[in-house]
């Protein structure tokens, strides 16, 4: 096994007197797809923000987060509350990132075609995009700069089932093509079974990590979500399908 892409040791994140993540340690290798699951308030999104160094004050984070030197991170947030009045087209946004990172202008057309953004969509004002279109734009935005690690915070939370399916399919094919390392926060356990090779369970009670089929037992799910075992069985059917 080579050098890990990400190494987290004894990570603690607290806001004031409230500790959200306590003593978390794990490692990820190149090409891993880690799904982070857990009930609301367990610290899933906070973990992603900590990994991206987006938690506001350094005093609130203890422990160590070490990315390998050649890591380039791309991030797809749960949602972006973009002002509908903004005089900003998809093209303006992608070009601004490309210019800020010093990338050639051709990279914008490359990610646009990779994420199947039509010319018409690229020329559309951001404020009038549908939820699914905006999510595609956010994925294209994350792919600019040729990242080798992608972090997704419930990327389909505001989408209908069909759009959700399309987003995950395109993510999966991108991951296969480019051998991304992926960290994915998701509530949808069928997605976890289909796409992740590692699962990190976060909850106030316990933290555990392992392969989905090994650690996602009915007992653990009940403990995490206080949900009945039938929920697990339903998920299993999805997973095996």
């Amino acid at each position, binding site marked *: 096994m080579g050098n890990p892409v990400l190494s987290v040791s004894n990570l603690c994140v607290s806001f004031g007197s409230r500790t959200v993540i306590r003593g978390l340690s794990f490692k990820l290798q190149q090409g891993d797809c880690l799904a982070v699951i857990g009930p609301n308030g367990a610290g899933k999104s906070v973990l992603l923000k900590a990994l991206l160094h*987006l938690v506001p004050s350094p005093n609130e984070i203890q422990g160590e987060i070490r990315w390998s030197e050649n890591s380039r991170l791309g991030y797809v947030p749960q949602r972006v509350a973009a002002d509908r009045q*903004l005089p*900003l*087209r998809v093209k303006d*946004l992608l070009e601004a*990132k490309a*210019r*800020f990172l010093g990338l050639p202008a051709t990279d914008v057309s490359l990610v646009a075609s990779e994420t199947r953004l039509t010319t018409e969509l690229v020329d559309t004002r951001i404020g009038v995009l549908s939820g699914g279109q905006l999510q595609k734009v956010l994925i294209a935005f994350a792919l600019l700069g040729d990242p080798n690690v992608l972090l997704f915070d419930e990327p389909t939370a505001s989408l209908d089932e069909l759009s959700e399916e399309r987003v995950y399919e395109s993510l999966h094919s991108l991951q296969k093509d480019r051998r991304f390392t992926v960290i994915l926060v998701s509530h949808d356990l069928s997605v976890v079974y289909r796409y992740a090779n590692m699962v990190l369970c976060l909850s106030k009670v316990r933290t555990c990590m392992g392969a989905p089929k090994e650690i996602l037992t009915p007992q653990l799910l009940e403990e995490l979500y206080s949900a009945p075992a039938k929920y697990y069985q339903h998920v299993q059917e999805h997973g095996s399908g």
Partner: protein
Amino acid sequence: MGPSHYYALLLALVFAVAAGLVGSFAFMKRMLLASDVISHLALPGLGIAFLLKINPVVGGAASLFLGAFLIWRLQRQTGLSSDTMIGVVFAAALAIGAAVTPNADLLEALFGASKELSLPGFILGSTAAGLVIFFVVRLKNQLVLTVFSPELAAATGVPVSRLDLYFLFLFSLTVLVGLRFTGALLGSALLIVPAATAHQLTSKLSQFAAISCLVSVFSVSAGWLFNAFVSRSTTPGPTIVIVSGLLFGLSLLKRG
């Protein structure tokens, strides 16, 4: 009109370009109302300068930049909403300014004056406005990313908090250059109205900033000429702002 009048007009035009540009980003950052308050921060400094008989620009600059920095720190540390900050700072700055400004100078502090401008004053003002234009163009991409999502901008490597402070200073510097024409009360009008007009006319970013600058320059030119040859008031500020208001009214016809 002598050369000193031309210097004043030329500076007003350079200020108009800077105001149109900064205003377009202030519009996108949804800080137009907050920025209106920033111009009032100059008032206590202007009042104290009039009282001590020192250059009003020095007093205005001191209270403007100190106030802008305090707002930035307070918002970061207390997490107070913009509404609260606007309410408190607006009232305090206006009250202190009105209390300390000698009555004879109050009108000039509030609405500006059409005084002659010396060559060094013109060079200083134009350099300040030129710096504003240079830095806004240079920071354009970072500002666009932050306007869309501060969180995504930070994840991309933009120093969001520092950028906010830089923008606040650029905004304050623009207001400072315009103070002599518009005064503290109308100080941010040319940053607000042209951007609002441009938004009615285009949805493209590149055209948005350009139209905002054009509306600003036209407002200054037309307002200045109207004041010089028709109304002959002591200050061109109100006529400039009235012209920009009229242009905004006309722009509504396009979408209406």
